[in-house]
């Protein structure tokens, strides 16, 4: 197989586009896709400070690499979840990436901030680890962006993530989630703009970019992801993609283009009024936000199990550690 651009031996085939690329032209094609997504949705605007959510996996590190390569002002944001050695290795990969490139990194350790790790939070609430983990990540991304003055939060969601989410929402006709899904969620009072610049690139394409760019990322899967529904949806979509290249992209992009506008119009007026949480001051729909409610519940049970001192009260303010680039340290 030959590169569609220069005719050299190809290393990556993009079947859905009927193209193949040598390493140099693959990386150029990939970066250009990201640039087009940013431009198409005006994801980053003049003067924006961008907080890149970085787990240490391939998607978030590739996103950070491409955004900095395109010249955007970015800071990484990593959340230490406290999932044993898995979390330690995730931080190590993230720190190494930031240090090698001289990038600023903010780190919040959930246990240092709130007293419990994500597995302990799950134990103390009786909820699945992924449920508390997702809620904590969303809360911390919004909170740290607001506290530190970032108008945009970028996440590494790729085409497979977005198509799998769509399939999950469609399978249960979750209209509230369906109207919100998209590559760009505009800022609202107290909430940073959320962007997903990799949303048209498949997970295989992101992995190929990471490999060719020499990005050292964490390969291992979160131990709590085993049996996750998202993996089942991805498996089903990939089987379709193998038989019919372009299925994943058509499923997502055509939904966003043709179906979502109709759905939004049909549900017009259904916007929920936002207010401030009485406990932490973050934006929410009720009097107390879901994050504060979750941690209050966890504290009550954690104290009974003597995981926390009886005198300790939940303080929703995260403790942010800064890893400055070597040039500024």
């Amino acid at each position, binding site marked *: 197989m030959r590169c569609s651009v220069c005719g050299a031996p190809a290393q990556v085939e993009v079947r859905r586009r009927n193209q193949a690329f040598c390493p140099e032209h693959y990386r150029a094609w990939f970066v250009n896709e990201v640039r087009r997504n940013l431009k198409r949705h005006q994801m980053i605007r003049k003067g924006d400070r961008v907080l890149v959510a970085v787990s240490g996996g391939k998607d978030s590190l590739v996103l950070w690499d491409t955004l900095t390569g395109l010249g955007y002002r970015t800071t990484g944001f990593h959340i230490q979840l406290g999932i044993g050695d898995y979390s330690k290795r995730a931080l190590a990969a993230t720190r190494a990436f930031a240090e090698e490139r001289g990038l600023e990194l903010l780190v919040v350790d959930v246990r240092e901030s709130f007293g419990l790790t994500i597995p302990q939070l799950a134990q103390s609430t009786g909820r699945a680890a992924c449920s508390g983990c997702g809620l904590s990540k969303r809360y911390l991304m919004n909170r740290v962006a607001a506290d530190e003055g970032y108008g945009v939060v970028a996440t590494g969601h790729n085409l497979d993530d977005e198509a799998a989410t769509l399939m999950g929402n469609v399978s249960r006709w979750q209209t509230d989630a369906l109207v919100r899904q998209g590559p760009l969620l505009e800022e609202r009072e107290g909430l940073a703009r959320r962007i997903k610049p990799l949303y048209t690139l498949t997970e295989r394409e992101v992995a190929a970019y990471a490999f060719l760019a020499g990005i050292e990322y964490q390969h291992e899967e979160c131990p709590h*992801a085993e049996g996750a529904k998202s993996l089942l949806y991805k*498996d089903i979509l990939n089987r379709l993609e193998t038989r019919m290249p372009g299925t994943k992209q058509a499923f997502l992009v055509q939904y966003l283009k043709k179906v979502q506008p109709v759905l939004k119009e049909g549900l017009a007026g259904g916007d929920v009024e936002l207010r401030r949480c009485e406990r932490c001051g973050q934006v929410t729909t009720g009097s107390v936000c879901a994050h504060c409610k979750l941690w209050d519940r966890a504290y009550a049970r954690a104290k009974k199990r003597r995981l926390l001192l009886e005198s300790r009260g939940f303080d929703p303010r995260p403790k942010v550690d800064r890893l400055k680039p070597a040039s500024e340290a």
Partner: protein
Amino acid sequence: MKVILRTPHKEEREIQGPLTVREMLTRLDVDPEGVIVARGRELLTQDTLLNDSDTVEIIRAISGGGL
């Protein structure tokens, strides 16, 4: 040839060549959409012919969570 599967746990297999990457993945029942295949620092397309002297890695691309 030696095949190292990182899906994501490391596992090694021996497979008789010559055969293409596509044939190798079919034999191992691995969906090509969910992996990248490498020989050293080189990525391989599905039509690449592999010989017995090759060592190739199958790296899983799919993950379940993360930010």
